């Protein structure tokens, strides 16, 4: 393990260039920023795909894109938004803020953390490289077999999808192990589980979901990859296989995945509402247990995605019931959020507006979700635009609103600059109006019978007005994020003006300077209550922690930079690219696989034996 001793009186003799520093960093805060920047770019790419889709559907019988292109666009839009935008944007907050919120210097495994990021980034670039090859995935984000099998998807399109997801799964699993360990083991003295900030709780539960659900999709993808590459028949009727197995395995992963996307959002909202209401979170323990209960139930409802496959009345009833049950803990959460605001002295800053927007939008999405849990109703609504409206209210109205709220809330801590409030408000109102204009009409289009994934539609079915509205709204949504970018550029040019604690925060990250120093906390903080910083402020009567030695961090050991996480990530990428080659079964002689495997193994060994002082400061 490379170790750096931080000591400002003896600057590093060999100053590393900025590029090398970012490539080799193992600092959880820098990795968080890398996650955020990459995920935001992927989010813009996914948004651009959505805008092309909406332009195509703007009017009947439109011919802007070909049907083949349309398939690629909606597949990549879904895949990008879920795996390359929302999950890694959550990961940005996990990385940057979980150690700060629990009063730790770092995550449990800094180099594993760096590896997670590089594997994610390479996997994301690999998926998008498919566009350059003219072979973007085209079988829908849940890649239903046999549509995704060799028989019906012969090109490289679905290979990109299968292999890309496999690579991204490795990143998620490594991060899952890392954050599970970090949260359980690295908490500051006195921070018991029931004193952890709610965002940390939701992160912990999210990681448990990742750890238990990703192995299932890994197995499903391995079998699909075997079908596609080697010609086995796991999901092909011709060889006795059963496409239903794909659906079961996919949704055993896919439904918990929905909670992997939304639970971090719940956590962010639960941090923001108390701070801007000047009141502790209402019903803390109910929030913890309802989160855990949601995660638990999340594993028992996967087949509600499959009501229309003819599983029979018993299975349909069971999964209906389990799905309806999830409304109870979710309702508990919403009541607790409202209880937090109730009677508080509410300060309507930008993060708070986004948080309030989240609550309103998520309620609408939640209600249409309960409508789907009724199997007979679902049979009418499934695969119509009603479903599209529902899951966008949950994923955009839920996850994206909350992530944006978190972005505005934590931006000063991350970059030492306050974002402009006026531009923030413009962003919020454009996004709220644009979002509802886009997705609310889809409920009606869906109930009128407009199927999802349809490339175009004839005039006269009553879809025109709703689609026109949705397209206009989509462009408003696009503009709202341009406002955000303008805000970032404008404030970036300004001075670093953020104080340590701009919002009057309740949690430990606000006790240290903005942006935090590499070692986070000069001295480990002992925690006595939840909302630790509020309690300290109450007792000390000051707005900042009494800090003896904020700048020097003398004698604190931080892990040194390392190249090996990047090398291992490249090895993994090359290993998987080998499976794009559809030779006959010739495993021992697949050179690309072997090369990738060799690089990965070599990297892991160099990593394991990396000298402790390889990059220690020289004098």
């Amino acid at each position: 393990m490379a170790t750096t001793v931080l000591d400002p009186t003896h600057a590093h003799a060999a100053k590393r260039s900025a590029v090398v520093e970012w490539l080799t960093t193992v600092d959880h805060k820098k990795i968080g920023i890398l996650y955020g920047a990459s995920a935001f770019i992927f989010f813009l790419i996914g948004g651009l795909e959505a805008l092309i889709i909406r332009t195509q559907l703007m009017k009947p019988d439109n011919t802007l894109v070909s049907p083949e292109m349309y398939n690629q666009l909606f597949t990549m839009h879904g895949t990008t938004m879920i795996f390359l935008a929302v999950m890694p944007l959550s990961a940005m907050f996990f990385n940057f803020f979980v150690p700060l919120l629990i009063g730790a210097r770092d995550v449990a495994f800094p180099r594993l953390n760096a590896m997670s990021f590089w594997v994610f980034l390479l996997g994301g670039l690999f998926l998008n490289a498919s566009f350059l090859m003219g072979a973007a995935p085209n079988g829908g984000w849940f890649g239903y077999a046999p549509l995704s099998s060799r028989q019906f998807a012969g090109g490289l399109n679905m290979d990109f999808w299968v292999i890309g997801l496999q690579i991204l799964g490795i990143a998620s699993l490594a991060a899952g192990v890392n954050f599970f360990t970090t949260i359980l083991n690295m908490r500051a003295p006195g921070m018991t589980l029931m004193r952890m900030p709610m965002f940390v709780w939701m992160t912990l539960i999210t990681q448990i979901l990742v750890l238990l659900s990703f192995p299932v999709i890994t197995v499903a993808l391995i079998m699909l990859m075997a079908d596609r590459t080697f010609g086995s028949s796991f999901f092909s009727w011709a060889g006795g296989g059963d496409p239903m197995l794909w659906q079961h395995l996919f949704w055993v992963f896919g439904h918990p995945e929905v909670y992997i996307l939304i639970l971090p959002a719940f956590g962010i909202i639960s941090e923001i509402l108390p701070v801007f209401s000047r009141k502790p979170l209402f019903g803390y323990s109910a929030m913890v247990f309802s989160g855990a209960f949601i995660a638990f139930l999340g594993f028992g409802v996967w087949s509600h995605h499959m009501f229309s496959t003819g599983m029979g009345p018993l299975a349909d009833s069971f999964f209906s019931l389990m799905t309806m049950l999830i409304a109870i803990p979710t309702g508990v959460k919403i009541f607790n959020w409202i209880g937090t605001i109730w009677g508080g002295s509410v300060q309507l800053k930008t993060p708070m507006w986004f948080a309030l927007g989240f609550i309103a939008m998520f309620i609408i999405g939640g209600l249409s979700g309960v409508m789907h849990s009724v199997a007979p109703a679902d049979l009418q609504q499934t695969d119509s635009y009603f479903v599209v409206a529902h899951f966008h209210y949950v994923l955009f109205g839920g996850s994206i609103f909350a992530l944006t709220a978190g972005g505005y809330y934590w931006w000063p801590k991350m970059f030492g600059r306050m974002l402009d409030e006026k531009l923030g408000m413009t962003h919020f109102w454009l996004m709220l109006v644009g979002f509802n204009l886009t997705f609310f009409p889809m409920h009606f289009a869906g109930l009128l019978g407009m199927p999802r994934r349809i490339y175009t539609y004839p005039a006269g079915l009553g879809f025109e007005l709703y689609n026109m509205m949705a397209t206009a709204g989509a462009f408003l949504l696009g503009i709202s994020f341009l406002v955000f970018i303008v805000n970032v550029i404008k404030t970036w040019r300004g001075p670093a003006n953020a104080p340590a604690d701009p919002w009057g925060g309740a949690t430990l990250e606000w006790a240290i300077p903005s942006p935090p120093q590499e070692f986070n906390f000069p001295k480990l903080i002992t925690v006595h209550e939840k909302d630790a910083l509020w309690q300290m402020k109450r007792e000390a009567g000051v707005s900042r922690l009494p800090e003896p030695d904020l700048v020097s961090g003398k004698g604190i050991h931080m892990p040194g930079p390392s190249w090996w996480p990047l090398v291992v990530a490249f090895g993994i990428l090359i290993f998987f690219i080998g499976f794009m080659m559809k030779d006959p079964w010739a495993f021992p002689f697949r050179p690309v696989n072997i090369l990738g495997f060799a690089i990965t193994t070599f990297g892991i060994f160099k990593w394991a034996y990396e000298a402790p002082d390889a990059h220690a400061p020289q004098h």
Partner: protein
Amino acid sequence: MPTPHNTEAAATMTTAVIDHHDAPEHEEHHSSMPIDNRKLAIWTFIGSECLFFASLISTFLVYRGQSLKGPGPKDIFSVPLVTFGTAVLLFSSFFVVMALNGAQEGNRKKLITWLSLTVLAGCFFIGMQVYEFSHFYHEGMGYTTNLFSASFYTLTGFHGTHVAIGTLWLATVLKDAIKGNVPKEKALNLELAALYWHFVDVVWIIIFPVVYLMSLGS
């Protein structure tokens, strides 16, 4: 190297060289649970791996008897050979416990002896599987022959891969031990590999009856 007036940093750096691990704080290392980071991580990973093998075993069971053509398990399995391999693998769990015991006592000879036996047992099991697979292949059961062959090779192949990784891991610890780099305090290095090894064994205890014995009984 640190200059004399920076003795504090020098002292902490020396500590770091002697006792370095993946936790970032050394001088005031704090853990909120009485378990090492790496150990907790291995347990977490094993928890995740359970779902991986559960999915593979479920697939094998779902496709039992669904193959449209032969050969099936009854035509091909040689239970005595696999029973012997299973026994060797089970004994290796005992060997690695003895090796860990030696490491914790600081008994290098005991450590090296038992760890070598563990690695040998791992190699034997992999050898047995390579023999079994190539035998099946020559009997006409390729990976894509039928559903049974594909799900059988995938399940046992991934288990075999895990055995290979575990063997490689144990072999690197053995290499360190022979060089003398596994003092008492570093017994955890072996304990982590041993935990993984036990898990791989436990999975085989499920695979052996489910795949070999049940297929013959039905």
